[in-house]
């Protein structure tokens, strides 16, 4: 058992892959898009610094009000899964297959997530690192293919405005559900804060790079995927469809992590195993019906509220001795 524990991989790769899905699919920091590029980038940095501070407060604690915390976090995860599913589908229909059916798309995605639960954390964490490596490779490919089209003169050259910076930072205060999972799993291990810094830094770098890339090509706004569609490589006339599967792997990573977390919370709440099937059905139904219309504006607020409440409960939990 001791040896098995030694081989337990860190959840960092899966957590990071899941968070990057938010960057690519949901534009969780999308509200910041209304601000100029520099303010947006530094505003996001400030917001993530704030979350790093929150992780520092959560470090070494166990969640307080265990059952209530479990219920709140579970509800937040369910909402996050519904939103992720719907936003993933919208992204997919926009860029890959406009005739795709949400129910089929969702059923396939939840199948992959369920398979992740079957194999457990160890497999999911490792699968997360595969998705991350593939995404990194794809990033290099996109940069390489777009190098010829970037115009450095497209970058804005105005000084940073304090008001806009504060506004951008405020709008980027988006609570990623993965942060709580990360704190729950690793918060009592040594080196948690340093790893958290790397994790949030990577998110900042990835999101900033996408913003800069879009600006370098278009001067103004434009999705990163739109920019990537312009990439040309060798004999392929368009190869955006080639990296759609890699982005989808990030999306599945998020669903797998969500499903694993739900399974964990189910055990904590002492609910029967069949609850996971119900949660899957609820996610599919929720993404199809509750979120009809514009997904970003509906229950995102509810998800955020639940996550902040759960975080407050977590902060009220007992401080424990660090493991390791």
């Amino acid at each position: 058992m001791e040896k098995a524990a030694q081989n337990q991989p860190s959840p960092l790769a899966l957590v990071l892959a899941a968070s990057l899905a938010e960057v690519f699919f949901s534009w969780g920091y999308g509200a910041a898009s209304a601000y100029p590029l520099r303010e947006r980038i530094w505003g996001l940095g400030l917001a993530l610094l704030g979350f790093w501070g929150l992780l520092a407060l959560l470090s070494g604690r166990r969640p307080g009000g265990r059952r209530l915390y479990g219920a709140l976090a579970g509800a937040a995860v369910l909402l996050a899964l519904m939103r992720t599913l719907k936003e993933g589908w919208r992204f997919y229909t926009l860029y890959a297959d406009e005739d795709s059916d949400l129910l089929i798309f969702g059923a396939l995605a939840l199948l992959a997530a369920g398979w992740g639960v079957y194999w457990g954390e160890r497999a999911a964490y490792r699968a997360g690192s595969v998705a991350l490596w593939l995404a990194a490779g794809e990033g290099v490919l996109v940069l390489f293919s777009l190098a010829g089209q970037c115009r450095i003169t497209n970058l804005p050259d105005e000084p940073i405005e304090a008001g806009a910076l504060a506004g951008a930072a405020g709008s980027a205060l988006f609570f990623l559900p993965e942060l709580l999972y990360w704190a729950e799993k690793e918060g009592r291990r040594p080196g948690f804060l340093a790893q958290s810094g790397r994790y949030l830094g990577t998110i900042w770098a990835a999101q900033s790079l996408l913003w800069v890339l879009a600006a370098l090509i278009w001067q103004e706004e434009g999705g990163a995927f739109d920019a990537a569609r312009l990439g040309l490589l060798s004999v392929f006339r368009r190869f955006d469809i080639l990296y759609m599967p890699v982005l989808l792997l990030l999306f599945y990573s998020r669903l797998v992590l969500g499903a694993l977390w739900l399974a964990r919370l189910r055990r904590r709440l002492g609910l029967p195993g069949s609850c996971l099937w119900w949660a899957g059905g609820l996610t599919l139904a929720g993404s199809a019906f509750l979120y009809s219309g514009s997904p970003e504006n509906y229950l995102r607020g509810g998800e955020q509220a639940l996550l902040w409440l759960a975080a407050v409960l977590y902060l009220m939990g007992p401080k424990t001795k660090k493991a390791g």
Partner: protein
Amino acid sequence: MEEKLSPHAGENISRLKESVGGSADFYSKKLEIQGVPCAVCLFDGIASTEKLWVMLLEYLAEVEGPKPSGEALLRYIFTRTDLPVEPQLAATYSDAMNRLTAGFALLFIEGCSRAICLAAQSMTHRAVQEPSGEGNMRGSREGFTDLVRVNMGLLRRLMRGGGLNMEILQLGERTKTEVALCYSPLHAPRRLVDQVRRRLQNARLPVLFDSSYLTPYLQKRRWSLFQGVGYTERPVTACAKLCEGKVVLLVNGSPFALILPYFFAEHFQSLDDYAQKAFFASFLRLLKYGAFFLSILLPGVYVCAAQYAPQILPQALMMKVLGAEQSTPWPLMVEVVLVTLMLEIIREAGLRLPKPIGHTVGLFSALLIGDSAVAAGILSTPVLIVTAFTAISMFVLPSLYEQITILRILFLLAGGWFGPVGLSALLMVLILSVCGSGEAEYPFAYPFLPLRRGAVRDGLLRFSWPALNESSYDLKEMEK
């Protein structure tokens, strides 16, 4: 049958004869040795009566005078003669039957409730030959044969440093098949050996005719596409794995040794890799990885690209593909599925038929499908090219044949029915399966996940021998 042997030789013979229903190959004879009534028995075909009588007559010619009792005779034969006797006497009927079915002759002496086991084996078996299913250009030509004892000898001959333990277990309630658990005490983690032994002891099999019967009992997960158990027909490969600290299982009647744990990367390694130049072996490794992904993904990606995103293809190729598809009556996916299944049927037919007819079937089918079907406009040339290329890629990795076949069809269906989302969902399922297979201590994806030095050194590539020898690898390294 745990009943103890009787002190009456005649009664023992009768009981044994009765337990095999008076079987025709059961040979028994009463005789007198140095004045003591005795009886011998054996199974004709696996033990030789001629050998037995030569042994006994030689002995009788040399000894003189009667013995006072059966016990005295037994002691004398067991300790003071040059007869080839087993170091353990048979004491129960089940023990006696075990020895008889292993090819021993039993000598019962009146007044003794134990039997002497004489080595009179004379089993006909397949000679040690070059393995048919594990081709190599260099290295040893020896392959395992069907008798476990011969196979144990082949291993022992290659590992003469003393670092090889072989334990015999009996499995299969009806067949009582011998299984040899082989490991190197110097390199194999104790916990691994204990775990394998425990799982074998807990395995409840009615019959055991091949080593593959054991694999479900040696892994934890029921729903697993990949297995953390490998096969080899080559003693030299088995020895190499033993030196890495792995456990090898030999099963009587099977020329396939089981190796465990077995990692994903090992499917891409072969004996030749270590005999060739490092740069060439590395090139072949990369080719094999490429072939693996091509063989599972190409038909699915082809169908997906043609149906959902033809724009990614170069224009000339896209025109050819679309033109070819319009000339056939089937939807693209149905066409690829048909050709894939047809190929599997041809392969299966060629495999099961006698070899000369098998070749003819393969040739005939290839001509029929490859030429006539295209000429008649039933199938298109691009589909045939894709399927044939996939099939050839698949043969590069015979040890992953089952997985590749199923994955190829699944990816094809996923890509055809659901497009990129189906392909990527299945890709995630595949990645999770690879990452989750194997034991917690010995993950199947090792050394790629968790990432270790060996991932490049002897995983993706193969470094030169001096570089590999700088720090030799064994399973104990995984525990550091």
